[in-house]
């Protein structure tokens, strides 16, 4: 069995969030990404690896270079994550509306 990392654990790290922001603008090579940080190239590679494992980044081979870009599938996972929370509140508020409308009609 392959151990899958948690997407939310992946984005909890500020360096990894910065990498996502950088790559969101345009696809980048690992060395171009590493130039934005004071950490070693190895440290940045590790972060890129984690982001790729979590399907937040994907690789694209262009000639001899590997470019990293955002993986829409993984990013959608984060958006979907908030949806159940939004639905829960939406249902609660619909409830509130129904109950208070009933109360309003009694007042009239």
């Amino acid at each position, binding site marked *: 069995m392959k151990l899958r990392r948690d997407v939310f654990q992946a984005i909890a790290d500020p360096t990894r969030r910065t990498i996502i922001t950088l790559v969101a603008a345009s696809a980048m090579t690992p060395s171009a990404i590493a130039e934005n940080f004071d950490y070693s190239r190895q440290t940045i590679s590790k972060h890129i690896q984690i982001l790729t494992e979590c399907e937040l980044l994907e690789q694209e081979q262009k000639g001899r270079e590997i470019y990293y870009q955002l993986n829409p599938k993984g990013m959608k996972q984060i958006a979907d*994550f*908030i949806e159940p929370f*939004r639905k829960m509140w*939406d249902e609660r508020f619909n409830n509130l509306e129904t109950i208070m409308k009933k109360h309003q009609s009694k007042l009239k």
Partner: protein
Amino acid sequence: MEQKTNINALEGKQDLTITREFDLPVELVYKAYTEAEFIAQWMGTNVLKLENRNHGSYEFETSYDGNVMFKANGTIHKLIPNQEMVRTFEMENTPIGVQLEFLNFEKVTEDKSKLTIQIIYKSEKHRAAQLKLPFAYGLNMAHNKLEEVLSIQQ
């Protein structure tokens, strides 16, 4: 269709904002938040204590099949009728911790209003715990359904 309830949770932050537009006068939305009878109905909880005043406190308890499912409590810091409420909220025995809530009640027209709730958590991790709760619940439901289907097939 535009959604009536929106959640704005920026990545890397420890707060989130919930907005909702109601087809109700602002007074009635405020009432739904400040009278025990109505809180009990729309939140589906028992209201054990509710002191609607500055520095007052409250306690909710939700039961299902005679078992207490969850307890929540908090302190009301500031209350301006039909406009504003500042309170803390804590769901007991969860990793979410205490949260600070700024509720803003806004009149749009005579029968329409808008509620904006900004919730601040202790950290980004605490916010994630909150967001994961209904997500995990949804996953559980799906898992249980899957088990049901599988047990029927056996």
